[in-house]
């Protein structure tokens, strides 16, 4: 029973991690929250659903949803961040919420406000590992998200673009003096942030089977909580905190009252941000 819940928690948490990474990448770079992120996630979920209806195989629709949501991320940056460099620091925050409203409304027009059902395309296999039952979907979710996280981690640490991202987040002026084009790095960061949210969307649609255009609101908030607990701007922290939150949520539902789930999550969140704002694993500090 306990191990079963642990697996379920890890599965749920891995989608939270993917969302949280998107927040934390943007925050590390621009010191701002992208409140449309949850809605980019929603767009990813619906893209996955639409592709499934068109009969596109899952691996391909994951990639397509990644690209689609990634482009959405770039659009958010173009409209809500780039033109507002000289505005009040809250400008991008409120601008992204307006963008989110727009995405929700467009989503409602295209897919309707009623829950949409995810078509059952593949046969679900159940594997029995001792007392634990794992479905093929759970395995797909865990492997996809863990592989993406490991890939991103390698990417940030090992590649030229990854180094440019780290340099830009430490200081845009210095980075551009050293030959990094900050605008390109920022665009790329928003693309990866959106792409990860898109994958998380498709995976969440696979689990929940029913999605609405408003699914991004709660998932987006949970992503922010995971980011805070992992430490603002800390990518590895966001991964671990997302998994932890998934486990906490599932354990709470299994052994405690499901209704208190969000009180507990937001309570932990508030305690962290006030008393331990650097999170569990240390926040990223901008060098000034």
């Amino acid at each position, binding site marked *: 029973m306990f191990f079963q819940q642990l697996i379920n928690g890890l599965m749920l948490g891995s989608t939270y991690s993917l969302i949280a990474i998107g927040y934390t990448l943007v925050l590390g770079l621009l010191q701002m929250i992208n409140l449309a992120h949850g809605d980019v996630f929603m767009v990813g979920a619906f893209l996955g659903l639409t592709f499934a209806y068109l009969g596109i195989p899952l691996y391909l629709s994951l990639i397509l949803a990644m690209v689609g949501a990634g482009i959405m991320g770039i659009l958010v940056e173009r409209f809500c961040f780039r033109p507002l460099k000289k505005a009040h620091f809250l400008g991008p925050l409120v601008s992204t919420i307006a963008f989110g409203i727009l995405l929700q409304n467009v989503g409602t027009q295209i897919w309707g406000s009623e829950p949409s059902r995810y078509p059952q395309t593949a046969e679900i296999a159940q594997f029995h590992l001792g007392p634990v039952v794992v479905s093929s979907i759970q395995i797909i979710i865990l492997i996809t998200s863990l592989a993406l996280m490991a890939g991103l981690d390698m990417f940030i640490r090992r590649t030229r673009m990854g180094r440019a991202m780290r340099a830009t987040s430490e200081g845009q002026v210095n980075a551009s003096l050293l030959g990094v084009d900050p605008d390109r790095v920022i665009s790329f960061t928003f693309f990866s942030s959106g792409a990860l949210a898109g994958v998380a969307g498709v995976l969440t649609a696979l689990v929940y089977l029913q999605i609405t255009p408003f699914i991004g609101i709660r998932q987006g908030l949970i992503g922010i909580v995971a980011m805070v607990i992992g430490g603002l701007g800390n990518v590895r922290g966001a991964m671990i905190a997302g998994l932890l939150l998934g486990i906490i949520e599932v354990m709470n539902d299994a052994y405690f009252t499901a*209704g208190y789930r969000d009180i507990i999550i937001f309570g932990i969140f508030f305690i962290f941000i006030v008393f331990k704002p650097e999170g569990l694993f240390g926040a990223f500090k901008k060098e000034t």
Partner: protein
Amino acid sequence: MSGYIEGVLALMGINILLALSVYAILMTDQCSVGNAGFMAIGAYTSAYLTVKMGLPLLPALVIGAALASLIGLLIGIPALRLKGLYLVIATLGFGEMVRTFFLNFEPTGGASGFRGPMGTTLFLIYAWVVGFIVVFWLLDRSRLGRSFDAVRDDPEAASTMGLDVIWHKVWAFGFGAFIAGIAGGLYAHYMFYIESGNFSFLLSTMILLYVLLGGMQTFWGAVIGAAIFSILPEVLRFIHEWRLSFYGAVLVAMMIFRPSGIITRQMVRDLGERLDKLFQTART
């Protein structure tokens, strides 16, 4: 007046109050995306007092707002440790905590909401709006208002001049929470029914948007911003189901093309001078 127009005007008045509550906190260069939480405290407390305890509306409103204000002060003190983005996230967390609290708090209906509060009239809403506008107008001309300006523009210089920066910041939080509490009470007694979903972070950020788009250099920006942008979705009704898309696009475009907001301090000053001249020529 038809019921529809009255409803639009009532919500506009409540939005103006909420925008002023955000402005009060912004006065000291702090920001809050949790004002829907203060609003919820005011709404639920006053509704409980009138429906369950039989208290008249006015004292219930004030008690609800006082409780919101007290919690605002309590939140304001630890939140002082935080600046900028951290404060944004903390207030966001606070707002969501309050919302989930009321979602699960059975004495005020929990998930099924709370039915029964009534008695808010359009006149009552606008009496509060005018009252708070007068308070802000007087504040602008007072020593206290100047010290709020000083704390916002340069807290270090302000404290060197002997101003208690912390005191100003905490009270700004308490004052903002009080206004939001009043707005919440009025809202509850206008709608006859409230549920926790009414007070989400979406509302908090929308109010912040009104203030930023209206202009945050003077309180008139908050008033005008809230008025324009709570009427705009109604004006846009002719494009039917796409109106929220259009609304969102307008807001994004407004942020791009007029980042300092509609009303600037210079504008208010120019208008004041022009009015003065007008009066002088009228007199002679």
